[in-house]
C-alpha cells in the first residue's frame, strides 16, 4: 500500500466509541419488564445481572437447568485475586476447593513445595492463608459460587480455589500472579478467573497463561476499566481464552469498559451485588474520592457488597462457563469458549465487535446449545493491493460454520447504510484466516467511508455478521 496515495484510516475496530450506538440495534433494553426497585433504591432488581444472563430464579429456568444438566459434577474454579473470606456464611466449605492431598499439619503432604496449601495459597505473604483483606476476591467468588438467598452465585457446583495474589489495595506483583496461575494449572483447576490487569504487559503472566491454555484450562479475563482500547495486552490469544467486557442495565457497553479486538464476550458489570469479605470496604480502599465510606455495604450484618467493574463481568462469564463444565465435564476449555460465544446474545454492532465481542453471555442458551454448533464470521483486516496496475480492496478474515451454507461480503456507504453492494461472489467454501473478498476499488468511488459486512450463513437458516468501517481517506 502506498500511503501517500491511499490514505487509510485504521479499521474502525473500536476506534469510534460512538459506533456502537450509531450502528447498534440495541433493542433489548428493559426487556419489557416493569422496573423493580432494588434494596438500595435502584430501579432494577439487586441481582439484575444474573437475570440478564438467563438466571432469573424462576421455576421455568430451574427446569431448564435441571433438564439440560441431569447430573452436574463439581468443577474446580481458580480465583486468582485478593483471596476470599472463607468464613463467609454464604461460602460454605462445600463451595471451596479443598486440596485432597494436603492436611493442616505443617507438612507438605503432597510435595508440591507449598506447606499446608489446603484451600489455595497466599502469594502476597507467601503463606497458606489466602484470606481476603481487600474484598475484591470474595465478590468474584460469590458471583461464581455463593450459597444463600440474598446474593446467590451462578453455579452451586463450582469449587473455589483461593489464590491470593493482590494485596489489600488490590495491587499484586506479576510474579505472584504468574505463580498463582501456575498453582491453579498444577492443581487441576478447569477455569481460572483473572479479574486483574495492568499497564505493563508481563512476560511472566503471559507464560503462565500459555501453560494454562496448553493444559486445557479455560482462562477468563476482564477487559479493563479505563474506558479505552486496551485489552489483554501481551497475553496469548488462545481458543481457551475469554476476554470479557462489561455491560450496564441497558445492555450497552458500560462506560468504563475497555474494548479491543480480543474481547470475546460481554456480561453485566455495573452495580453488581455479591459477598463482602468481613471488615472490607473495597471502594473506600481503592481511593474513589466521591465514595462515602460504607455506602456500598449491603445487608443488616454487612455481609454483602456492590460494585462496578469488568472484574465482575468476567466472574459472571466464569460462573456460566463453570456451569457448562459441571454439566459436561468432558468439554475442553476451547469447546466451552466456543459454546459460550456462539450462544451469546448479540448486542451492539451485529456480529463479533470490539465492544461486546459476540455479545452478552447467556446461561440458558449455552446449556441448551448444540456443543458442536458454530457460525464464525470475522473480518480481521481490509487492505489495498494492486492487481494489474489497478487498486483492489482485499477483505481478510474467517467465515465458517458447523453446517456452512455460504458467506457474503457486502459494502454500503456509511451515510447510506442500507445501500448494500455485494462484493465478489458468495463464498461457497469456508475460509479460515484468509481472503474473503477482493474487488476493484473503483466500485467504491461514491463515498469515503464504507461499512463492510460479512455474513456467514448456516444451512439451518441462521447467520452471523461481522462489520467494520473502512475509511478511504482522500481516495479516488
Amino acid at each position, binding site marked *: 500500500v502506498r500511503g501517500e496515495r491511499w490514505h487509510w484510516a485504521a479499521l474502525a475496530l473500536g476506534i469510534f466509541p460512538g459506533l456502537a450506538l450509531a450502528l447498534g440495534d440495541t433493542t433489548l433494553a428493559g426487556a419489557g419488564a416493569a422496573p423493580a426497585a432494588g434494596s438500595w433504591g435502584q430501579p432494577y432488581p439487586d441481582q439484575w445481572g444474573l437475570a440478564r444472563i438467563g438466571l432469573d430464579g424462576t421455576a421455568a429456568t430451574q427446569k431448564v437447568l435441571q433438564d439440560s444438566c441431569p447430573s452436574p459434577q463439581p468443577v474446580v474454579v481458580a480465583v486468582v485475586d485478593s483471596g476470599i473470606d472463607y468464613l463467609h456464611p454464604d461460602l460454605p466449605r462445600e463451595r471451596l476447593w479443598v486440596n485432597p492431598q494436603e492436611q493442616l499439619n505443617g507438612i507438605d503432604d503432597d510435595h508440591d513445595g507449598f506447606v499446608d496449601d489446603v484451600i489455595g495459597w497466599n*502469594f502476597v505473604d507467601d503463606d497458606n492463608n489466602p484470606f481476603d*483483606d481487600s474484598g475484591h476476591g470474595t465478590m468474584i467468588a460469590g458471583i461464581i459460587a455463593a450459597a444463600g438467598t440474598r446474593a446467590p452465585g451462578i453455579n452451586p457446583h463450582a469449587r473455589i480455589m483461593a489464590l491470593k495474589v493482590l494485596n489489600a489495595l*488490590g495491587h499484586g506483583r506479576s510474579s505472584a500472579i504468574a505463580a498463582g496461575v501456575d498453582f491453579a494449572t498444577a492443581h487441576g483447576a478447569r477455569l481460572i478467573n483473572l479479574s486483574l490487569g495492568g499497564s505493563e504487559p508481563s512476560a511472566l503472566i503471559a507464560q503462565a497463561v500459555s501453560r494454562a491454555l496448553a493444559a486445557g484450562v479455560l482462562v477468563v479475563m476482564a477487559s479493563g*476499566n479505563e474506558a479505552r482500547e486496551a485489552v489483554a495486552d501481551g497475553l496469548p490469544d488462545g481458543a481457551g481464552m475469554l476476554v470479557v467486557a462489561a455491560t450496564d442495565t441497558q445492555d450497552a457497553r*458500560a462506560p468504563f469498559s475497555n474494548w479491543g479486538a480480543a474481547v470475546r464476550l460481554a456480561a453485566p458489570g455495573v452495580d453488581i451485588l455479591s459477598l463482602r469479605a*468481613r471488615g*472490607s470496604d473495597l*471502594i473506600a480502599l481503592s481511593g474513589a474520592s466521591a465514595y*462515602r465510606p460504607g*455506602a456500598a455495604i449491603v445487608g443488616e450484618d454487612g455481609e454483602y457488597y456492590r460494585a462496578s467493574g469488568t472484574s465482575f463481568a468476567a466472574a459472571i462469564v466464569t460462573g456460566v462457563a463453570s456451569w457448562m463444565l459441571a454439566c459436561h465435564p468432558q468439554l475442553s476449555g476451547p469447546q466451552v469458549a466456543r459454546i459460550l460465544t456462539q450462544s451469546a446474545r448479540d448486542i451492539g454492532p451485529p456480529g463479533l465487535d470490539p465492544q461486546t465481542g459476540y455479545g452478552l453471555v447467556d446461561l440458558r442458551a449455552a446449556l441448551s446449545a448444540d456443543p458442536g454448533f458454530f457460525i464464525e464470521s470475522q473480518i480481521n483486516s481490509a487492505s489495498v493491493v494492486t492487481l494489474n496496475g489497478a487498486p483492489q480492496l482485499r477483505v481478510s478474515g474467517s467465515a465458517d460454520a458447523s453446517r456452512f451454507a455460504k458467506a457474503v461480503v457486502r459494502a454500503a456507504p456509511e451515510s447510506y447504510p442500507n445501500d448494500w453492494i455485494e462484493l465478489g461472489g458468495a463464498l461457497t467454501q469456508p475460509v479460515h484466516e484468509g481472503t474473503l473478498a477482493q474487488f476493484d476499488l473503483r466500485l467504491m468511488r461514491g463515498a469515503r467511508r464504507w461499512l463492510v459486512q460479512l455474513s456467514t450463513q448456516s444451512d439451518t437458516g441462521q447467520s452471523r455478521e461481522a462489520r467494520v468501517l473502512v475509511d478511504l481517506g482522500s481516495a479516488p
Partner: protein
Amino acid sequence: LRTLALAVGITSGLRLGAVAQADTLTLDSGEFRAIELSAQTDPEEFAHRNGIADYEVRPASGGTLQLRFPMEEGVWRARRAALCTDRGVQSCDTDYCQHDLGDANAATTSPLGEPATASPAPPVATSSDRATPLLSVKVQGEDGQPRANTRVLLLPHPPDIAMLFAGAADAPAGNPDTVPGPASCANPQRGRSVVPLVNVSRADGSVSFEEGRGPGGDRSCWDVVAIAGCAVRREPLSNYSPDFEARRVLVLLQLPPADTTGQTLASLAAFATANQMRVLEATALPSIARTLVRLEILSPQTSLDAAIALLGPQAGVELAQREYRYEVAAHSDPFAWMNYGAKLSGADALQRTVSGKGVAVVVIDTGIDAAHPELTGRVTERIDVTGYGISADRHGTAVAGLIGAAADNGVGAYGMAPEAQIISIKACEPESRGALAARCWSSALAKALDAALARPAHIINMSLGGPKDPVLERLVNAALSSSRLIVAAAGNGGPDGAPSYPAAYAGVLAVGAIDSRERPWAQATRGGFITLSAPGVAVPVPVPGESYPAQLSGTSMAAAHVSGVAALLQGAKPDVTGGALRDALVSGGTGADGAAAQPHVNGCTAAARLGIDTAGCSSTPPASGNPP
C-alpha cells in the same frame, strides 16, 4: 520429588544493619525482576553465576522455580538481554505491579450512581493533641528516607485457617476466671461498622491513628499495613502498641510476715468490690515470696488506667499493672526444608562425647506431645498454668523436639541433646486447636517461672516474646539470681520490631535466627540485646500425632537450639552455673559477620571455654559452610 533447598528471604545490607526501631514501617523500594527457571536449573547456582546476591525463590509450575530479586532500572536495562537468555531461563521480566479491575469508580465518573456530593467524614483516624494516639508510626524506605503519601491501614487480622476445618466452636472454652480466652480474634467480628481505617503518611512519613476508633484495647485482632503500589508491610498492631486485656489488672502483693489469715488479700478484695472490681484469682509465687492477684474491672465507666491507679496505693500492693499478651515466636515455613541445625550449632560434633543425659530443661511454651516417638520417656513432667489443661500442641512439641528429640530412631534426627529431660510448663494456649500460633499472658508466665524455680532444672527455654512487664521482670530476675539460664527468642518482629521481652531483659540469653547458610533471618527482630544467633529458618521439627516432621521458622527454633546445646554442656559439667553457661555460649560464639551481627552458637568452642572434653569436635570441625 524435587527437594527445594532454598527458602531465602530478600535481605538487603541496609535492613540487616538497621537499628531496631519500634515506631517505623519499612517498605521495600527496590524494583524487582523475576525469572522463571527450568526444573533442571539450580537457582542458587544461577544467582551466583549472575552475581545476584539478594533473591527469593518459590515454586512455580511443574518443578520450575521463580527467582525474584531487586535490580535497579539502569542495571536491568544493561543486563537484561544476557540474563534473560541465560541457561535455564523460561521467562524473564520486570516484576510489574498489576491491579484488580473491581472498582470502576476509580477510573470513571461514578458509574455506581452514587451521589457525588455528600461525602461526610472520611474513615481516616487523625491524631489530636488531647487523645493518646492508638498508633503512631513512621513510614520509611529501605534507605531510611521517609515515605510520604503512603497509605497506612488498620485491618482486622486474618482468621486462623484452621477454623475452616475445626469450626469456631472447637476453640477451648476454658474457665472465664483463668487466662483470657485465646480465640477472641481467630474469628474477628462481622458487621457493617467493622471497616478498615485508612490514613496517609505525611511529608515526614509519620502517620497516626487515634485511640477509641477501631480496635480499642484488643490490638491482637488488628494489623497495621503500609502499602505503596505492590510494596506491602504488614505487622500485627501489637508490635507497635502492646496488646493487653482491657478489663484486667495484675497486682503483686507483698504479704506482711504476720499476715497468716490472708487479711491483706481480703482487704484488697473488699476494696475491689467497693470500686466495682472483683478478684478473679490469687496465686502464691513462693520464688519471690509474693502473691499474684488478677482482678476484673466490672464497671464500664472505669478505665483500665484508672483502675491501676486506684489499686497501686493499696496496702501490700507492690505493683499494679496491665495483663500483657505474649506470643510464641515461630511460624510455619511455607517452603521445603533441610536438616542443618545440629551440624551448624556444633551439637553434632559435641554429641560424640557428651549427651546431656539427665539434664533437665524447662520448656515454658504450649503443651508438648509426650507420647511422640521422638520424645518418648523424655518429658518427665507436664504442668499447666493456663487453666486450659495439658495438651499436645504444635509449638511446644517442636521446641521440645529441637532440644531433646531421640537420635537414631528412624523418625528424624534433630534433638541437640538427645538424652536430656524435658519439663513441660504449659503457659501458652494455641489460638485454636491445632494452631501453631499461641498466646500467653503476663500472669501465666509469672506462674510458669515460679513453678520452674521450684524445680532443680537450670535451663529454662522461653521461645516467646512480648512487651516489657514488671511482674515478668521480677520473676526473670529471681531466676537469674538463683543461677538459672533463661534462653529466650529474640522475636520475629523484623528490622522494625520492638525489643521483645523476656529476651531483652539483662542477663537473659536472647537468641536470633540464622539460616542454613548462616545468614541472618530477615524476619528476626534486631537490636543490641540479642547476644547470639542459632539455626532458625525452615528447620524440621516433630508434629503432634505425626511421624513425619514439619518445618518451622522463627527465633523460637533458634532459642531451642541454644537450650539443647546448653543441656549438652551442662551434661558434661553438671555443676556449671547458669551465668557461666551463658558466658561460655556467648563468648564461644563464632562466625559473626559484620559489626551489627551476633555470633552464632558453637557448641564446640563454648565447651572449650568450660574446659569440657571436645574430642568429638576436633575430629570434625563444626560446619561453617553449606550443609549437604
